[in-house]
């Protein structure tokens, strides 16, 4: 090849077979150019760039790592410069670019918050003693089962051992997902344990797709108006009003438009989206389709984290069944509206859930967040108007359309409806709970069976949130009430820590999380998260924080919050600063 310069490393037959199996036939055509790549050539290269991740996934799964020869083959087939492909491969948690030297599956063990206090390190060591290949990593979204593991298969499909029960009887988790008694019943979790998540027929028998039919007959603008009346806000962390975001895209002229379900769910302590996708996958498909109708988008995407094999299987099946039934594809439900969904599997990285990083990831690039403005509504996926919404946000849509103003009957005036909360840590019945917004923190914890032990602190909103004292139990769980008390709902994380917890070790891990999850693009976060971790490690050794270090922590926090590009940097010091404020760490032992 004239211009795409490849090293001499050759691919093996096995590597070529592996890659060819996932690339669509037309994507396999190799275009050899005799001239230097020019802009036209670039455009063609970018055409297939988004297939880079699937190809890397294939090599990782089949060969166990991405070799120089294998990378060359992918680069050649997709016309992606190998240096860039290498940059992408080295970005993700689930990819290895060094020969692991064994052919076993890898057991990923979560080291974060709930798993940390549930003995993750001892668990990892026990697995190692058992001869397993263990990788210690970030939150796996199974905090209710702490300590959690995920098996990255080698010569076998990826799996989560704890899923076995759920596969055998899909409603098995019902016992730990309840709503408060006086709520008028479950909405988001209504189908869980009731509808067979593998059957479209079952979903429709329970009222599924009535909402889409209604949306199609109402028309896009009417749907947006309905969502505005319902007062739906985003459940991904920022709490942005959904209708405003949608209106922005509906008003844009650019075509095609995209709607994306953000199913990356990687905030430590969060596992609600997994619960929804595993137990009620059709609701997400229907919700995303409604979003597409409302803004006139033809393309739907679900960006799901790579550590959710059961949710991935269920969604794949749901998409196929919906397509076969004419609920996706050309002329959805005979309406003349075309809409289809692509399921994209990530490869591990908290930052991929940041909406603009997610766009880059979908395009086959390193998942570095983009500068905003321009916002995705104006310039999103491949520069086109794009909506990114959290899974739970989208799963609210069928209910909103079905119930109309009834949606507002529960919750508060400013925060109507119900919301999912992920309770874990030192609580009797860890799990996902649906309660009306405005339920107090104390009530929420009681519904989850109450705290175990004597609660010393509660982490709200996950690692990106902040610690609060156990005396805040009267706090209503809404965005505005939590903000007023200087904390956050985030993605609905409530993690309890009793008075036996070693907070220095816990904060050491939380700061390590930010250090290793920073994409490294901008200086305040790349260096700031590293320096912050080092100060906490040093505190562990010295036993306390000096005046000088306290100042440094605040100085770094302000710069990260003020000058970082994205939310990861903006929130990276929240847990540390709140822990110091509450006296969980910092003072002499």
């Amino acid at each position: 090849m004239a211009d795409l310069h490849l090293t001499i490393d050759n691919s093996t037959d096995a590597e070529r077979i592996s890659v060819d199996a996932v690339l669509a036939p037309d994507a396999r055509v190799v275009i050899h150019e005799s001239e230097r790549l020019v802009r036209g050539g670039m455009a063609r290269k970018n055409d297939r760039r988004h297939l880079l991740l699937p190809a890397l996934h294939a090599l990782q799964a089949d060969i166990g790592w991405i070799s120089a020869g294998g990378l060359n083959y992918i680069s050649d087939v997709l016309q992606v410069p190998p240096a860039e492909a290498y940059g992408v491969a080295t970005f993700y948690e689930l990819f290895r670019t060094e020969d692991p030297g064994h052919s076993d599956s890898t057991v990923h063990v979560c080291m974060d918050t709930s798993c940390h206090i549930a003995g993750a390190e001892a668990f990892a060591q026990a697995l190692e003693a058992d001869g397993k290949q263990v990788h210690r990593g970030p939150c796996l979204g199974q905090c209710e089962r702490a300590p959690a593991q995920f098996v990255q298969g080698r010569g076998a499909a990826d799996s989560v051992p704890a899923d076995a029960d759920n596969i055998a009887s899909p409603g098995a988790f019902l016992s730990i997902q309840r709503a408060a008694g006086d709520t008028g019943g479950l909405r988001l979790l209504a189908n869980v344990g009731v509808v067979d998540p593998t059957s479209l027929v079952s979903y429709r028998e329970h009222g599924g797709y009535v909402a889409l039919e209604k949306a199609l007959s109402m028309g896009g603008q009417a749907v947006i108006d309905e969502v505005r009346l319902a007062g739906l806000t985003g459940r991904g962390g920022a709490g942005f009003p959904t209708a405003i975001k949608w209106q922005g895209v509906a008003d844009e002229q650019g075509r095609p438009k995209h709607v994306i379900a953000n199913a990356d769910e990687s905030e430590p302590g969060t596992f609600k989206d997994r619960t929804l996708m595993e137990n009620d996958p059709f609701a997400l498909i229907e919700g995303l389709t409604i979003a597409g109708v409302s803004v006139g988008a033809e393309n739907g995407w679900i960006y799901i984290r790579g550590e959710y094999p059961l949710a991935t299987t269920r969604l794949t099946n749901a998409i196929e069944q919906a397509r076969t039934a004419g609920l996706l594809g050309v002329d959805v439900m005979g309406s003349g509206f075309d809409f289809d969904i692509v399921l994209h599997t990530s490869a591990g990285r908290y930052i991929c859930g940041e909406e603009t990083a997610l766009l880059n990831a979908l395009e086959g690039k390193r998942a570095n967040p983009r500068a905003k403005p321009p916002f995705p509504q104006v310039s999103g996926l491949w520069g086109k108007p794009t909506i990114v919404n959290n899974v739970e946000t989208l799963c609210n849509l069928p209910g909103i359309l079905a119930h109309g103003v009834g949606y507002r009957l529960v919750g508060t005036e400013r925060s109507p409806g119900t919301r999912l909360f992920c309770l874990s840590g030192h609580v009797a019945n860890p799990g996902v709970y649906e309660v009306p917004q405005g339920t107090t923190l104390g009530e929420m914890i009681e519904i989850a069976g109450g705290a175990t032990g004597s609660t010393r602190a509660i982490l709200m909103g996950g690692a990106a949130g902040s610690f609060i004292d156990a005396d805040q139990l009267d706090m209503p769980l809404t965005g505005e009430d939590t903000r007023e008390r200087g904390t956050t709902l985030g993605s609905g994380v409530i993690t309890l820590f009793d008075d036996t917890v070693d907070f220095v070790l816990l904060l050491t891990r939380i700061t390590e999380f930010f250090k290793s999850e920073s994409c490294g693009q901008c200086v305040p976060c790349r260096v700031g998260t590293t320096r912050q971790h080092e100060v906490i490690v040093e505190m562990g050794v010295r036993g306390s924080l000096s005046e000088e270090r306290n100042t440094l922590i605040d100085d770094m926090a302000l710069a990260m919050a003020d000058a970082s590009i994205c939310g990861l940097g903006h929130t990276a010091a929240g847990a540390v600063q709140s822990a110091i404020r509450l006296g969980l760490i910092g003072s002499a032992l």
Partner: protein
Amino acid sequence: MNLHQTAVEREFGTQVTVKINGGDFTVDEGDTILTACTQAGIDTPTICYAENLTPVNACRVCVVEVEGNRTLVPSCSRPVEEAMVISTDSDRVKHSRKMVLEFLGTANDLSEAPQINEWSTEYGVDITRYAEGAERFDQPVKIQDNLYIRDYDKCVLCYKCVDACGEEAQFTFAIAMSGRGFDNRISTEFDVALPESACVYCGNCIAVCPTNALQFKTEFDLRQENNWREEEQTVTQTVCSYCGVGCNLELHVQDNQIVKVTSPADHEVTNGMLCIKGRFGWKYV
């Protein structure tokens, strides 16, 4: 630089009025805040910005405060808007600029980045107040050929070399960002040596590097010998004679020897970019 304007707009474009540190200034619509500040006579530190590259706004040293924005904004990439209220000297701005410079000082070897050091002094940087054993960028110097070296201990990950090698100029894509977080590194695929990579030795990456992480082998050798005397060097302008394109060359001469070759970033033919012949051809003359 104006990022979003067409030639016609530049000719007949609209103007907007912004407030910078209390004073009113009228600038072209589509101009960046950085351009507006420069026109207002205000110096702004920049590291990842270059006039001949699209801003990546990664270093964040150029941040300013804009009323109505929750966080500070990068002046190098944010376009001005009518009635924007900008502050470049508030405590918040000074703090973040200082912290960025301080962070870089704790991580990298900035000994050959005099401009950055000047700013560090101006903003009162103190790199000694960090935890013991703070991790540094630490990389051995890569000397893989006779043309230029890569001393990534000096690399502040500004993306300029990557962009100059890729879509912004050279379209060779020999180097890219790899790794993650603090372990981000500019690298060829699998870190293969440059001669085995796609590199065509245009040296455009060297030209844009703000920290001397990339430098001519001649410069590196002279520095090793403690014999790099920049003040004494003369710069001669000439036009490259290898082909008919007409690239402007600046020959840097020390002791009657060419020690490096650059091209002005604002030169209309080159935009500062050259090819191997102009950049390194003198080595073989």
